[in-house]
């Protein structure tokens, strides 16, 4: 070890000193010899010559001595690097093609992996993020529904599997008294929430147990970004009050870092407390979910059993309608990214295929190059270079070019990632945090090295059986033009075609699904339709009458504006998702079993809504102004719900919906109309049963006003803002945008994946085409003499084309067959993302095959042309 160290030191630092000392020492040696010779009576010049002779070759002694200090390995490695660089510059086109191919392959993989890392792999930014669990309740019909307050309290006090629990839910409140009214997002949390998420206060304090009890004034902890943006970064903010929904809240602290509200951004936190009903009844649900910190070493299954035991005990002590409820528990990391795993697996597989294609191309390029360099290698072997030394040099050379390609790939990934993050749907958590951090760079390095080794070793193994002495005797083309080389290159091309087919197929399926989802009739007319989303401040609009009056006045004023055709309002517009659902049954139908009570979405529509949206009424009527709060309770159901119970939707009219199902309290409502289905969950969702309450019978302060206008949407939007401000300028606009845009947003994730896959498929086709071209072109090159002889013997162009075309056709056929099998297998993977067609749609399969076929034909065109143009005289003279 020590010898090694001094070697290193001397290899770099003391080398020149050593050289000088050695020369001086040898000089002295010579002098001693000379002195002796002089003593023997020689003349001085004789003595010097004799001394030199006696000493031996000074230069050789010096070299041999140096060698003990040198690093022969390092030196030859540096030499390899130099040769490698020289090789790269000697064939710039080849090198550029290899580097670009690698950059694309490695770049795509690095970019996608960095998103996978950010979304799925990166630890949560909490002290024990891997032990944080998301808790909800599950019934026979629904999983992950809200936890009731009493259940939460018992879990918190009785469970032995947790180091702490906190309840949390979202709420929207209006901030007034600071300029324009502002809709703000609150996280309601119990006091241990901050402890579990490892949050600290930058100013003031966080919640304590005391905040869980109602006091005046109420307390609020604001996030740093809200403090900086909305509160002007006021250093004296602690102790001041905010007016939220008309009530005063005292700011007690500013968070140093927002713990993040798991799914949506939050402006501030308020203490979460039960309503009177929730504190008294075990089945009174709010929308609270629970965050729990598992004790170290406790498994999720053990925790579930623990909490279920508590629920079972409660069911005995305090029987109720929800005795069958069990706990829903998932790790926070999984809960947040449910369903995304599949998406990223597909994306990762796609880029992996692209990388494989890149590798195949490079391996085949190197194989071809090996053959042209085989003579060089043979000569080097003949003059004494060891086989291992040559192999090492080839590996170094390939690794060098791969390293350059990898670096270019990381650079490419850097730019692609920015685009990717910008383009990606916002609802993928933490995607925006994707960067080229250490783990991602390690991944890129590992991939680069793996690719480099693969590419470097493939040609060496394939030429392993080549006898170098035979090579030297052969003419210019040699080693790789043997049968083995051809088989390997052919195999690579077949694999490339197959991979291109699979990617074309998968991206075709997703593109077609996207197209169908976009073109799917939404059940209403979304053209020239604006959506104005409002949430009335509850402080000012407490009474139902006040809310109804506000919306009536707003709609009347809007209708009076020029260019406005119709106006209507709904609580939950198409594409908004689940704004509330509940159990129901039909009074006139047999009573379902306790576990079979169906669910329906709940919605509220005002009398003009169906008209304004142009939603088809299948039977009966829509809500009317006659449906008053004190009148008979009526309801409009959608077609999906109607068809679940009646063959003819018209038979539903006059029958009754029992809300809450047969086992729970709830009103009985007469069905007065059946409306057409609208895609409530987004354009690519299946219809779901839904009921509409008339707006006067279930008053909602949050409504989306649909306004059908003519003319410029920008001007229309300005007109809507003016009209609203005239009625009440303290009502904040949550959003105001065309309905088309709202609905289009529901397809964002689908569009994201489809477009990415289309890009990857495009790259794959390009790479495969280059691969085919390279092999066929080489095939023509190595057979020029053969072709020339055939032409000289009178073979026409057609015969030549047929000969080479057969080669291409065989590769294409094998590739297509493999690709179709691969596509069939891949279709199972993407089944969950297919819309409107089957996962193995024959048309798309045909499209993929045709695309790959065209690719092969395009790739074969130039080699064919070259083959036909072979001039027999010139070629044969060359030989």
């Amino acid at each position, binding site marked *: 070890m*020590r010898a090694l160290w001094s070697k290193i030191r001397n290899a770099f630092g003391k080398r020149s000193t050593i050289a000088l000392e050695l020369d001086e*020492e040898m000089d002295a040696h010579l002098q*001693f010899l000379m002195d002796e010779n002089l003593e023997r009576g020689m003349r001085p010049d004789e003595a010097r010559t004799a001394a030199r002779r006696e000493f031996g070759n000074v230069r050789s002694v010096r070299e041999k001595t140096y060698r003990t200090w040198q690093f022969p390995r390092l030196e030859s490695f540096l030499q390899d690097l130099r040769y490698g660089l020289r090789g790269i510059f000697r064939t710039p086109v080849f090198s550029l093609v290899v580097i670009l191919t690698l950059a694309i392959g490695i770049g795509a993989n690095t970019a996608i992996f960095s998103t996978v890392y950010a979304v799925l792999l990166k630890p949560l930014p909490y002290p024990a993020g891997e032990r944080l669990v998301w808790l909800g309740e599950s019934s026979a019909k629904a999983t992950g529904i809200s936890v009731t307050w009493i259940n939460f309290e018992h879990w918190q006090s009785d469970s032995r599997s947790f180091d702490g629990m906190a309840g949390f839910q979202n709420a929207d409140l209006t901030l007034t008294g600071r300029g324009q009214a502002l809709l703000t997002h609150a996280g309601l949390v119990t006091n241990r929430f901050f402890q579990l998420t490892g949050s600290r206060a930058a100013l003031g304090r966080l919640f304590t147990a005391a905040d869980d009890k109602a006091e005046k004034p109420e307390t609020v902890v604001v996030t740093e970004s809200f403090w900086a943006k909305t509160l002007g970064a006021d250093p004296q903010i602690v102790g001041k009050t905010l007016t939220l929904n008309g009530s005063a809240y005292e700011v007690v602290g500013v968070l140093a870092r927002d713990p993040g509200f798991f799914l949506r951004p939050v402006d501030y936190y308020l203490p979460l407390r039960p309503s009177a009903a929730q504190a008294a009844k075990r089945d009174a649900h709010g929308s609270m979910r629970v965050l729990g910190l598992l004790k170290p070493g406790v498994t999720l299954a053990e925790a579930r059993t623990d909490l279920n035991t508590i629920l079972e005990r409660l069911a005995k002590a305090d029987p109720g309608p929800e005795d069958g409820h069990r706990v829903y528990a998932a790790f926070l990391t999984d809960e947040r990214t449910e369903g995304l795993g599949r998406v990223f697996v597909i994306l990762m597989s796609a880029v992996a295929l692209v990388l494989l294609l890149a590798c195949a191309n490079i391996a085949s390029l190197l194989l071809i190059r090996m053959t042209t360099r085989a003579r060089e290698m043979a000569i080097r072997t003949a003059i004494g270079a060891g086989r291992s030394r040559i192999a090492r040099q080839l590996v170094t050379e390939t690794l060098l070019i791969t390293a350059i390609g990898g670096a270019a790939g990381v650079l490419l990934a850097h730019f692609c990632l920015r685009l990717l993050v910008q383009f990606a749907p916002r609802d993928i958590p933490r995607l925006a945090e994707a960067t080229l951090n250490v783990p991602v760079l390690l991944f890129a390095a590992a991939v680069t090295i793996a690719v480099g080794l693969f590419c470097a070793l493939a040609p060496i193994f394939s030429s392993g059986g080549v006898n170098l002495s035979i090579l030297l005797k052969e003419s210019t083309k040699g080693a790789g033009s043997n049968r083995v080389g051809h088989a390997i290159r052919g195999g690579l091309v077949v694999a490339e075609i197959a991979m291109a087919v699979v990617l074309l197929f998968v991206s075709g399926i997703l593109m077609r699904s996207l197209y169908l989802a976009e073109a799917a009739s939404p059940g209403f007319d979304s053209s020239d339709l604006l959506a104005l989303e409002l949430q009335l401040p509850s402080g000012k609009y407490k009474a139902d009458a006040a809310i109804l009056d506000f919306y009536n006045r707003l709609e009347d004023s809007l209708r009076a504006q020029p260019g406005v055709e119709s106006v209507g309002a709904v609580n939950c517009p198409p594409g908004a998702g689940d704004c509330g659902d509940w159990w129901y049954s039909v009074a006139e139908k047999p009573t379902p079993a306790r576990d079979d009570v169906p669910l329906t979405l709940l919605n509220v529509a005002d009398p003009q809504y169906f008209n304004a949206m142009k939603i088809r009424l299948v039977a009966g009527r829509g809500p009317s102004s006659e449906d008053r709060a004190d009148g008979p309770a009526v309801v409009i159901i959608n077609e999906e719900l109607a068809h679940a119970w009646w063959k003819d939707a018209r038979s539903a009219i006059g029958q009754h919906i029992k809300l809450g199902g047969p086992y729970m309290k709830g009103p009985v409502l007469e069905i007065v109309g059946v409306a057409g289905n609208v895609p409530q969950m987004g354009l690519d969702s299946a219809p779901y049963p839904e009921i509409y309450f008339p707006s006067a019978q279930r008053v909602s302060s949050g409504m989306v006003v649909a306004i059908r206008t003519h003319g410029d949407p920008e001007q229309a939007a300005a007109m809507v803002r003016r009209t609203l401000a005239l009625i009440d300028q303290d009502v904040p606009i949550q959003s105001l945008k065309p309905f088309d845009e709202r609905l289009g947003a529901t397809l964002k994730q689908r569009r994201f994946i489809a477009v990415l896959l289309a890009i990857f498929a495009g790259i794959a086709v390009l790479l495969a085409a280059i691969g085919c071209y390279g092999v066929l072109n080489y095939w023509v090159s190595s057979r020029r003499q053969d072709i020339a002889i055939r032409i000289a013997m009178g073979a026409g162009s057609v015969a030549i084309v047929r000969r080479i075309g057969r080669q291409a056709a065989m590769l294409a056929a094998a590739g297509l067959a493999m690709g179709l099998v691969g596509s069939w297998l891949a279709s199972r993977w993407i089944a969950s993302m297919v819309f409107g067609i089957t996962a193995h749609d024959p048309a798309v399969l045909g499209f993929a095959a045709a695309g790959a076929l065209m690719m092969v034909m395009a790739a074969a065109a130039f080699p064919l042309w070259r083959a036909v143009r072979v001039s027999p005289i010139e070629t044969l003279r060359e030989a």
Partner: protein
Amino acid sequence: MLQGTLEVLILRCLKLQANHAYGISLFLQQQSDSEFVVDNGSLYPAIQRLLQRKWIQGQWKTSPNGRRARYYSLTAAGRKELLRATSKWQRFATAMAKILASEG
């Protein structure tokens, strides 16, 4: 010469007194009755190897006849190594001799 023997011989030579490269080669030639004629192409690298292992150290001194030369001397580690190598070589030589003598 056998691998590693030259180094041992150099150590043995330096055990008597510090010496320079020329002196070492003279010593080896004389002590072996001119059986070993040391090639400088082997001597110098061997000295370098001993230096690298810190078994000897070099120092520029003036020789009795007034010439400046690099004198090498044993270090403590070198002394230990010589002892180890000497016993090893003695056992080796005895064993060789036994086997060769038993031939008759």
